[in-house]
């Protein structure tokens, strides 16, 4: 059973390895988006509110660079999730008919999604450090990873429910509107407005903003919210894919 899952995982990675343009885009886009954000933003002063209530003075440039990481990771992971699941729905039913259990077919797809998210995250963090060093690396990395995984799973759900075109629309605009606008401390009064707390980007964004601009950690609440989103979305994706694969 584990052997079959490993084989399918290996095939899944080999399938992605045959797409050099994808790897180039997953590396080049974070590099361009983030370095460009730093380059074009004015270093004007900006007061933001941290999750613990403390207010700190920073610059628009640092904020823009820091918030571009989860936007980029969320956007790219979301699109990867969308098309990995579309591909799974088209071909993995055959694997199930051939004797694989739905779980054995789902695990390799999720492994590809997590791996793509990690690649994009690693490139994004490496580029960010050229211009901005977070005050506390742990929460900054964790927040960005959570943003990537949450949006990767939302992309996977969109792939199963909305289709390619609708999913592509959703995965471009949702991270942009959620993390890029609603959670972005460049706007409003330096903290997300009340309505933004119900969006999936709230928890990860508050965790990474805390890590980016504070040496302490006061984002336990947002971290718990992000983990709840992650668990709920994981369950939803697995249930939906199981049903799709068994129903095929």
């Amino acid at each position: 059973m584990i052997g079959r899952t490993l084989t399918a995982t290996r095939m899944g990675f080999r399938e992605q390895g045959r797409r050099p343009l994808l790897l180039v885009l997953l590396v080049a886009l974070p590099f361009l988006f983030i370095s460009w954000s730093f380059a074009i933003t004015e270093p004007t002063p900006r007061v933001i509110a941290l999750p613990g209530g403390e207010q700190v003075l920073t610059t628009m440039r640092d904020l823009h660079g820091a918030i571009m990481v989860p936007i980029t990771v969320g956007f790219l992971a979301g699109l990867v999730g969308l098309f990995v699941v579309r591909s799974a729905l088209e071909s993995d039913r055959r694997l199930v008919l051939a004797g694989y259990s739905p779980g054995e077919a789902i695990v390799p797809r999720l492994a590809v999604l997590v791996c793509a998210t990690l690649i994009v995250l690693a490139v994004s963090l490496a580029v960010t450090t050229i211009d901005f060093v977070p005050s506390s690396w742990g929460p900054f990395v964790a927040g960005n990873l959570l943003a990537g995984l949450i949006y990767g799973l939302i992309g996977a759900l969109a792939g199963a429910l909305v289709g390619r075109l609708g999913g592509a629309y959703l995965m471009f605009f949702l991270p942009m509107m959620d993390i890029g606008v609603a959670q972005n401390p460049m706007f409003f009064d330096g903290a997300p407005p009340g309505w933004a707390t119900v969006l999936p980007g709230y928890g990860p964004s508050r965790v990474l903003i805390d890590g980016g601009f504070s040496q302490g950690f006061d984002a336990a609440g947002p971290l718990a919210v992000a983990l709840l989103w992650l668990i709920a979305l994981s369950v939803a994706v697995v249930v939906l894919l199981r049903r799709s694969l068994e129903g095929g």
Partner: protein
Amino acid sequence: MTEIALGSADFLREHLRARLTLAMLVAIPALFVLVSSSVLGEFAAALGGSAAGDSASALGAGWAAAFLAGALGFFQVSSSRDADRRLALAGMGAARVVAARIAASVVLGVLISAVAFLTLVLTAGVAHGAHAFAAILAFALIYIGIGTLVGSVISEPLEGSLTVAFIFLIDAFSGPGMSGSGGAAQLMPTRKAADLLIAAGAGEGSPGGDWLAVGLTALGALLLAALAFWLSARPRTG
């Protein structure tokens, strides 16, 4: 002519038969304009740009129309490559397939632009309504060309979507009112359309030369789209 109209109606139905896709074509531009209208002025200021108030909100409507149209153009080509060739071979001919595809794309572009424009009118109001609608439509038509061009070169949906998004983000963030004013920013495809939109948002007119430039750019984009559709549908030997 009837064949082209029928083909165009079928292509439209192909895209709009998924109710959720249709809902998103309407909801996303509306939501984007609504959410971004309050912050785009601040964002432009952070980038050292001059767009503010209603001009910045108007720019958001153009962006929403542009990305949706770009993705639509890409998926029109990437998903129809085989079908269009068969249609052409079955008697419709490549030219009529291309005309029907372009007509369907323009109708969808008008739909997207109308939603973005109406939301803009309802949320921020526009002093020069006709100018603003024409500029938003120009954003959509230019990106239909870009999307179809990407679709004719890249067939994989993930890589194609990422490429369209990449072009769009570079274009939007380096455009007028944002960070760009000279150098490479002058070469961005929607630069003149953004100038028109910003002026319309501020209640000002635009010089005739700008309208001509935007018209020619949109026409050029549609010709590129026609070329991409023709490359898809043209008969091949072997």
